[in-house]
């Protein structure tokens, strides 16, 4: 394999694996903060839920930290030419992540995990708020970095080809960053909600830890429903329009829209055939792509074949599948969480065993959807490492050979396989052990146990 392919595989593999964990912690950080706020107002079993979820949060956070450190370094190790050219711009947001988010998170995580008795209930609530702010800030800086690669703003290209920062304000207020951040954060909340609801449903089905599991599952279902809706409209819609405006080739490729058409259909299913530039087994909604793009049934949508072939993303079928898997799963999440929210509102959620089974088995799918979403963004950006400015092939380190890159790729694969085993081992033990009755549980045991929803 070529060195470039290996550099791409290594970054793709390590970032995909890494992002399995932050999407949990960013989602859980909000949910834990919500539960802690309820606990502060005296809602029964909320504090027990917080303590249980902090254990999962702590282990997951560690996984995010240890797999995140290699990401920062791989800019320089594997993408030296890109780093040299763009470091003056994206280094700013990456450094801000360290200074404003990581210091905050690392300083208060320990207090949140182990300091409840020492800092009291209000202090613990503040710590949960700071962790929530820290994780979401971290998300903003990193998405902002990526946004500049998707849609560069606030820069100058000098005569010698080097790129300079022209406006920090423009970099930080990149419209792409705000759209991608809100979409990414709703995605993380979906993951957090499904993890929480899935494990809650598991306890409900087993008839264990019922009160506390019902408490957090209710919160997760409501939050998950709101987030699933928001992932489609407005955040997903805004993001798709941005891609259409700023990356029209990408838009045509991810929609599987090969030929320019009036009244273009929205493709639900089908397999792209790259030789004939057609879709096999298409299942489409006529006119809907035109409607969603231009708000008119009969408007024209430019197809992929109208663009130069060397501007096409280099893996159109994978891009197409990634986007459709994300969108398809996103629709399913609205359905599942919508049903959950309706039954919760009718106070019958926890009697629907089929819905409990569905929630439990749905747990892995938000990870697939989030991964597919990021694959859409990153494959869609190809063949550029900085869209329109620097081709991916010109960004890699020329001094790192294919053999060295393969060695470290295999090393990461082996190491991360071990990490997965350890993570599953530790988390399944925490789940098997279950939430513990808290020090304030005595008073609540006398409370009526009919507080279902």
């Amino acid at each position: 394999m070529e060195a470039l392919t290996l550099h791409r595989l290594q970054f793709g593999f390590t970032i995909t694996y890494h992002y399995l964990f932050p999407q949990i912690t960013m989602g859980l950080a909000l949910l834990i903060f919500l539960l802690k706020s309820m606990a502060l107002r005296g809602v029964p079993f909320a504090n027990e839920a917080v303590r249980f979820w902090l254990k999962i949060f702590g282990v997951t956070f560690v996984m995010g930290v240890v797999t995140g450190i290699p990401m920062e370094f791989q800019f320089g190790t594997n993408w030296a030419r890109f780093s040299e050219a763009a470091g003056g711009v994206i280094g700013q947001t990456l450094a801000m992540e360290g200074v404003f988010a990581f210091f905050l998170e690392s300083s208060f995580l320990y207090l949140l995990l182990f300091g409840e008795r020492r800092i009291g209930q209000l202090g613990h609530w503040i710590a949960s708020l700071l962790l929530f702010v820290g994780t979401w800030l971290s998300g903003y800086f990193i998405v902002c970095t990526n946004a500049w690669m998707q849609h560069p703003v606030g820069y100058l290209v000098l005569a010698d080809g080097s790129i300079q920062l022209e406006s920090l304000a423009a970099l930080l207020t990149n419209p792409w960053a705000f759209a991608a951040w809100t979409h990414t954060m709703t995605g993380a909340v979906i993951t957090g909600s499904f993890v929480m609801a899935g494990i809650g449903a598991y306890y409900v089905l087993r008839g264990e830890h019922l009160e506390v599991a019902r408490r957090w599952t209710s919160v997760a279902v409501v939050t998950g429903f709101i987030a699933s809706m928001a992932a489609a409209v407005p955040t997903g819609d805004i993001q798709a329009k941005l891609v259409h405006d700023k990356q029209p080739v990408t838009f045509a490729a991810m929609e599987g829209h090969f030929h320019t058409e009036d009244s273009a259909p929205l493709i639900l299913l089908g397999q792209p055939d790259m030789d004939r530039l057609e879709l096999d087994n298409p299942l489409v909604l006529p006119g809907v792509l035109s409607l969603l793009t231009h708000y008119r049934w009969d408007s024209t949508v430019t197809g992929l074949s109208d663009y130069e072939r060397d501007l096409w993303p280099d893996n159109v079928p994978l891009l197409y599948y990634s986007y459709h898997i994300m969108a398809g799963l996103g629709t399913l999440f609205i359905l599942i969480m919508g049903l959950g929210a309706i039954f919760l509102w009718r106070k019958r959620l926890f009697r629907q065993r089929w819905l409990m089974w569905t929630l439990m088995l749905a747990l892995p799918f938000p990870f697939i959807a989030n991964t597919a979403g990021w694959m859409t963004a990153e494959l869609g950006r190809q063949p550029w490492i900085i869209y329109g400015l620097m081709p991916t092939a010109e960004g890699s380190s020329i001094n790192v050979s294919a053999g060295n890159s393969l060695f470290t790729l295999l090393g990461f694969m082996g190491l991360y396989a071990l990490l997965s085993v350890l993570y599953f081992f530790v988390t399944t033990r925490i789940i098997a052990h279950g939430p513990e009755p808290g020090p304030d549980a005595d008073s609540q045991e006398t409370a009526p146990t009919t507080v279902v929803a």
Partner: protein
Amino acid sequence: METLWFVLLAGMLATYVVLDGLDLGAGILHLFVARDDAERKQVIRSIGPVWDGNEVWLLAAGGTMFFAFPSLLATSFSGFYLPLMIVLWLLVFRALAIEFRHQLSDPIWTQFWDVAFGVASILLAVFFGAALGNVIRGVPLDASGVFFEPLWTNFGVGEATGILDWYTVLIGVMALATLAHHGALWLFARTDATVRQRAARAAGYLWIAVAVLAVLGTVATFSVQANVTRSLTARPWGLVLPLIAAAGLVVSFVSRRRGHGKTAFRASAVFLYGMLGSAAIGLYPYVLPARNEAFGMTVTDAASSPYGLRVALVWWIPGMVIACGYFVFLYRTLPATVSVSDVADH
């Protein structure tokens, strides 16, 4: 402006060494000063609340290097590809050891993580020292502006150097001894009972090793890198830094003998700042000297645009003030000592 960022970056890296050095040092000594489960819990508990924050200094320094000196980051990280990857893997293991050990109280589980913590800490200290040695000695940069160093060649300080040669190994061993000494003083100040006694004894032996290696390392540095003499001749006030380092080393000895753990630890921090400050002055104006001096990368070569450097001060200064505030708060809220009797029941 570039020189200001050179100083700030050197300061961040030195702070990283001082802070993460205390938990690396505790890790180096972990298997030796703590023999049973309660003692090992005691060691890990003494660094538990702070190690992650300490390590963030490395990330923040990396980010700062990225925007202030993008060429330095690109050239050095890709040139030091293999050792950096090994460092990353060791950092992963070490962090897992600290955070996963307490998840289970099974002897196989805890002993595995104890050894992982100790070994990863030892190797990291040596690698960090060797990395510093490589930067001071200079790398095989040529007209192409890039280099790629294998892990070792013939262990000589010639033109085609490897990551490990006699000089960088010497600096690696010096780093190991220095951080072990630093960690021993941390444990001396922050623990009680047997661990504290063993840490004191270890600090005694290590102090001698540090003193000898510091002299050897300094002599070797002058012999492999001519720029050190040149830079110090141009900036004679820079000689204050090695004097500060020497004073720190002496005070750490005296304070430990008098039983003042915290003072001894702080003196060791001063020693580290002094030594690393001396190294930074010895490097200047280079950020990455080359074996062939004509190709060395200077502060000006590596710096990004004047606007970027100026505007970064606007957020960097308040950001770091806030971050330092967290650290003051964090270290103030630590218990004065972690007692072995407190951890036994947990």
